[in-house]
């Protein structure tokens, strides 16, 4: 089975975000970056499918030069090779533009399966996989918690709301968006890290892919959300704050 995994590099979870002077994005220069968490699960699922059925895992990443670190890590975990669509300024692309770039790069590989995380931790639009599928004319299924082969196709378990699930059979090739928690993530081994250095990373540019940015959904500005509730912050040492909270729970909320 030939599997493409589309991965994205995003700021690490606990980042303190500052808005850049244009007001349209965040300051990136003082941030650390990591693989988007749902994409890490998608990569792991691809690696496990390859271990079961043989084949090849190709990491596909759209991002600036710094994303090569995330690509290296994917290769160290076991991806066989990678394609890096290198672009420093992605703010001029919307979801459709980015999906077009990824679809264009994926198309030539003629893979059996394309996996990606259900959403990114930064933009969180949750659409890239589905839009790629539509551009490529492939069937798709989202928020997937299990993937099994079934004859010439696959059987996947979709997560629905409120603890419901649904099994869906579909033909290959197909695109799946993977939910966090579908599997247990592996760590890269020392051997894997060593091997990653010799693996192929094909770099392509936006212009080579022949996709022009024509955004239809334009981010006008980013800003800190307004608080909807007046939160009473209980100050002091841990002990003092705890005592204040217990006081509130006892005399105002009356649950103690």
């Amino acid at each position, binding site marked *: 089975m030939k599997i493409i995994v589309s991965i994205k590099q995003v700021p690490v979870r606990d980042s303190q975000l500052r808005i850049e002077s244009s007001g349209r994005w965040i300051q990136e220069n003082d941030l650390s970056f990591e693989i988007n968490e749902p994409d890490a699960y998608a990569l792991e699922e691809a690696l496990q499918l390859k271990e079961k059925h043989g084949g090849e895992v190709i990491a596909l990443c759209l991002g600036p030069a710094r994303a090569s670190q995330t690509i290296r890590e994917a290769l160290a975990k076991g991806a066989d090779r990678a394609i890096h669509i290198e672009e420093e300024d992605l703010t001029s692309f919307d979801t459709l533009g980015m999906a077009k770039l990824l679809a264009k790069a994926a198309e030539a590989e003629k893979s059996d399966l394309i996996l990606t995380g259900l959403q990114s931790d930064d933009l969180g639009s949750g659409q890239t996989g589905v839009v790629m599928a539509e551009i490529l004319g492939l*069937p*798709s299924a989202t928020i997937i918690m299990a993937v099994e082969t079934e004859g010439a196709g696959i059987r996947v378990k979709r997560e629905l*709301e409120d603890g419901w699930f649904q099994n869906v059979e579909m033909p290959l090739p197909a695109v799946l968006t993977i939910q966090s928690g579908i599997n247990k993530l592996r760590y890269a081994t020392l051997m894997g890290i060593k091997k990653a250095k010799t693996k192929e990373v094909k770099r392509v540019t936006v212009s080579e892919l022949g996709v022009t940015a024509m955004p239809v959904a334009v981010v006008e500005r980013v800003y800190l*959300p307004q608080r909807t509730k007046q939160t009473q912050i209980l100050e002091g040492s841990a002990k003092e704050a*705890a005592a204040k909270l*217990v006081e509130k729970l006892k005399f105002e909320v009356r649950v*103690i």
Partner: protein
Amino acid sequence: MSGVLVIMEQRGGAWSRMSWETLVAGQQLAVQTGSTVSAAVAGQGIGALAGELAAKKLDKVYAVEHALLGAYTADGYTAAVEQLIRKVSPEIVLFPHTYQVRDFAPKLATRFGQVLISDTIGFRVEGGAPVFARQLFQGKLNADVKAGGAAPHFASVQAGAFRADQLEAGSATVETFAPDLSADKIRAKPDAPFRESSRAVDLTAADIIVSVGRGIKEKDNIPIVEELAKALGAELAASRPICDSGWLPMERQVGSSGQTVSPKVYMAVGISGAIQHLVGMKGAKTIVAINKDANAPIFEVADYGIVGDLFEVVPALVEEVKKAKS
């Protein structure tokens, strides 16, 4: 091109309650853009549902009826709604931001050369066109997104962003729309939805819930919050990542994929407050947040907050609770 079209969601003849909130968003958007709002429901045997919609303040109700829409498939729903949109020519199409919508609406928008502005929490109208607000970075920042390009524009509405009780009643005519669908174009074969097992833990009955998130760092630290739950006589719950990692069973998960709770007190310990979690607990009467990051979105919904290290605060809290109870 004119008006707002709201695509309602139903499963097995029961409404997704988020649909009503989206309908409110549609009514308000229509007022502010000086246009009209219509609603559509797709499925098989949906006459009664369409009838219910006809009693709302709407221009028209479209009953998108077809045998192949009985069970949801992305291919079936995308094709059916695409055909309806081409016939009705709305300026704006709104959806509730449900798992089902996430499965097909991006595909639909792509067919119109558009992008679904997903998971929006509000809008303002500028020069007759809507600018939608949506969250970035798991709720840490907001963004205003303008729907550009040629209409129709597509947006989905986050759970709880609008209040269903603000829905305006009225009367509308129902028009049945029969899309042209064929079984061979529907590539996925879905089984009936199922639940993993009957829930052994019913968090919805608890008066107090102590819920733990990523901030707990490792499985071995779980007893720290367990002890707090015990001291308070509370149920122990968790955000998704904790259950994903197997640190607590899935049935203790609160959020969009777990249980929705509204206890007297919900104490979020080391939970940043991503929207997937907030939708499951923001109905709590009193919310307490303990988090080291003062900017964590959980503080936006909290009544009481302690900004600090949970490994210091929680043991101190256990002691104070015991003292208060003795």
